[in-house]
């Protein structure tokens, strides 16, 4: 018995030694995702997206095996910094995929300047400032920002839906500011009015007072909430018996909310929205991606179709991998060659073509959608139309866009 055990141990040791001797060192990629707090469900789906992308490449980039080191954040900038420092200082990664949330992105932009040998590929964060104000040379973003995801929605809501007056409820951080900013640019130009804006802390439990504060004389309420907050809001709104119509921010009507448990989400049926994906789009590439997503995980471990986060992480990983393949996954020069290649990457993504501008910010497609109920009771985003090639200046000239100012609680004003 003892001998057999010894032999087994020896064999294991041999295999292990042989393994490290033969293969190249693994390529370690730090993946940041919000795995606690209000945006948990989004973070989990993001990780799924990256895992699928890696599996499609056989677990390898340029012949080197890839290892994900997942670092959890909670959507706050300081949690993102903690996670990034841990990845860089402790795990010694040179590649970071993430973060997920808006204010995390701004913090990571500044952090990335202090570690020039690390290449950060943003995975889903959507603040405008991240790639617009003092962009960092080693920070890349293959997804649109929150404003770009709103391109064309204002016009659609005003003209097609006929909502002339809106109230806004959003979480109090950069991404919802950016979404309202992007929406207001189009909506106010079309003639719409935003009469009230309420900002609540991320992770708000009790929306009672906020709901009571919604004015009676608005045509609809623009909701820039996400994840758990959206579900909480809808639940409590249903409890008060409210009947307002909604306009959704990109992650308000995303699968993270539409697949949630309970009945509150049904209030969203008929809600127009826009973002980086449309669940029920007919495009063959999109359908292939939905199928890959559905095949990769059992039905109770995923959403009905990939959320915005899964798609963004999928694209971000593919962008990073494309760049790495060009340089044969060689990072010995601190990633300088990789960054030169990354800037040139053009992705033929499931949600439309993506290329990067001079500030390493994606120019991509925005989808206008509307929530509908499928015959089997699931909620999905019906495809309305696309707005192709949205850039970060939203079709304005650089000067005109600069004159609008940066997203904030009050900008742009949107008074008649």
């Amino acid at each position, binding site marked *: 018995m003892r001998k057999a055990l010894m032999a087994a141990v020896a064999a294991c040791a041999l295999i292990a030694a042989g393994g490290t001797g033969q293969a190249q060192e693994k390529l370690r990629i730090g993946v940041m995702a919000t795995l606690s707090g209000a945006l*948990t469900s989004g973070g989990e789906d993001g990780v799924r997206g990256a895992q699928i992308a890696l599996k499609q490449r056989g677990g390898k980039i340029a012949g080197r095996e890839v290892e994900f080191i997942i670092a959890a954040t*909670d959507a706050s900038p300081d949690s993102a910094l903690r996670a990034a420092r841990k990845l860089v200082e402790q795990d010694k990664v040179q590649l970071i995929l993430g973060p997920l949330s808006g204010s995390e992105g701004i913090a990571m932009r500044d952090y990335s300047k202090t570690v020039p040998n690390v290449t950060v590929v943003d995975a889903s964060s959507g603040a405008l400032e991240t790639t617009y104000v003092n962009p960092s040379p080693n920070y890349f973003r293959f997804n649109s920002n929150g404003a770009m995801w709103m391109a064309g929605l204002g016009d659609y809501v005003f003209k097609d839906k006929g909502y002339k007056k809106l109230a806004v409820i959003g979480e109090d951080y950069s991404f919802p500011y950016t979404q309202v900013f992007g929406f207001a640019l189009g909506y106010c130009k079309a003639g719409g009015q935003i009469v009230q804006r309420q900002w609540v802390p991320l992770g708000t*439990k009790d929306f009672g007072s906020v*709901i009571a504060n919604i004015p009676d004389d608005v045509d609809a309420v623009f909701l820039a909430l996400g994840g758990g907050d959206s579900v*909480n809001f809808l639940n409590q709104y249903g*409890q008060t018996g409210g009947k307002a119509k909604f306009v959704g921010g990109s992650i308000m009507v995303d699968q993270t909310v539409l697949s949630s*448990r309970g009945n*509150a989400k049904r209030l969203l049926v008929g809600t127009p929205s826009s973002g980086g994906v449309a669940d029920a789009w007919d495009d063959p590439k999109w359908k292939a991606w939905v199928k890959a997503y559905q095949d990769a995980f059992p039905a109770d471990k995923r959403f009905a179709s990939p959320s915005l986060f899964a798609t963004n992480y999928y694209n971000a990983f593919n962008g990073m991998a494309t760049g790495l393949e060009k340089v044969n996954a060689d990072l010995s020069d601190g990633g300088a060659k990789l960054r030169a290649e990354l800037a040139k990457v053009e992705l033929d993504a499931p949600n439309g073509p993506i290329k990067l501008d001079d500030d390493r910010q994606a120019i991509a497609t925005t989808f206008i959608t509307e929530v509908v109920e499928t015959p089997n009771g699931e909620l999905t985003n019906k495809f309305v139309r696309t707005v192709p090639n949205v850039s970060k200046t939203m079709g304005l000239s650089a000067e005109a866009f600069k004159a609008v100012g940066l997203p904030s609680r009050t900008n742009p004003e949107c008074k008649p």
Partner: protein
Amino acid sequence: MSDFIGRRPIWSLVILIAVALLAFLIFAVWTPWMELTFGRKRVFLSALFNGITLGGLYFLVASGFTLIFGLMRNVNLAHGSLYLFGGYVGYSIGNLTGSWFAALIGAFVIVALAGMLMQVLLFRWMEGQDLRQTLVTIGLSIIVADLLLWGYGGDTFQVTTPDWLSGPIQLPFVVALRSNGEAVMMMYPLVRIAILIGAIILGVAMWLVLNRTRIGMLVRAGVDDRDMLSATGVRVQLVFIMVFAFGAGLAGLAGVVGGTFQSLQPGEDTKILLSSLVVVIVGGMGSIPGAAMGALIVGLAEQFGSVYMPTYAVMLTFVIMVVVLAIRPQGLAAVRR
């Protein structure tokens, strides 16, 4: 009552005026001038009611906390974990049986058992060692939080409200007048009213048990002087286990209640622990009326804060705590000894 007026005539007058003013604000039809200064009446009323119902939830959690502290001098920093655990257990039971009451009772019983185990297996062996107890409970809360994250994941859960409790109810308060003179009544979620009534009934029952029964007498005697009580031949350990189980059970029950009108997710444990710490510090450690008072103040502060000064709402509760600590460090309702 008349005694209080005799002793504190000025304070009585202030309280009377405040109550009258509040009653006026609630029942009167607001003039345009008032709407201009205080915002719309519906917002004010809703903040008031939300604050009171939130206070009801905080009371459920904090009363167990304060009882355990008062009797055993044990600052149970795992109390928030008991809350979250109860919520998840209630969610699972509710899903299995489809009954909200089964969820409530099941959570109460199971978490009470967990509390019993905590007392028997852990705290008995470190009686009177404050620092050790504190560290052990913190450790326990971290372990429980991770176990719950492992079991239930990071998602947001909601205990399903029974049909007869969902939807709004009309309250007899006029919030506004339509242009044709018709009064608009206040609509308010029924489930919140039910929770508030439940909390009040429970609070009164607890007060009665503590002040009118033999068991309550034992507990009160234990709060005052533990050693003397055990010297008179009472099996103090049994009383401890009972109180710990009840306090833990209340936290579990509150978890289901909180999961019904708010939601459950990781991190909720520390949040509720923090709130109940503030409640207990404001109200006075070990006092049930204090817990009720503290819960009401913290609930109202949170809600009014979020409406009238959203940016500083988070700070407001702590400002209150600091003020109470500065002026009356033993807490508002604590008995001076």
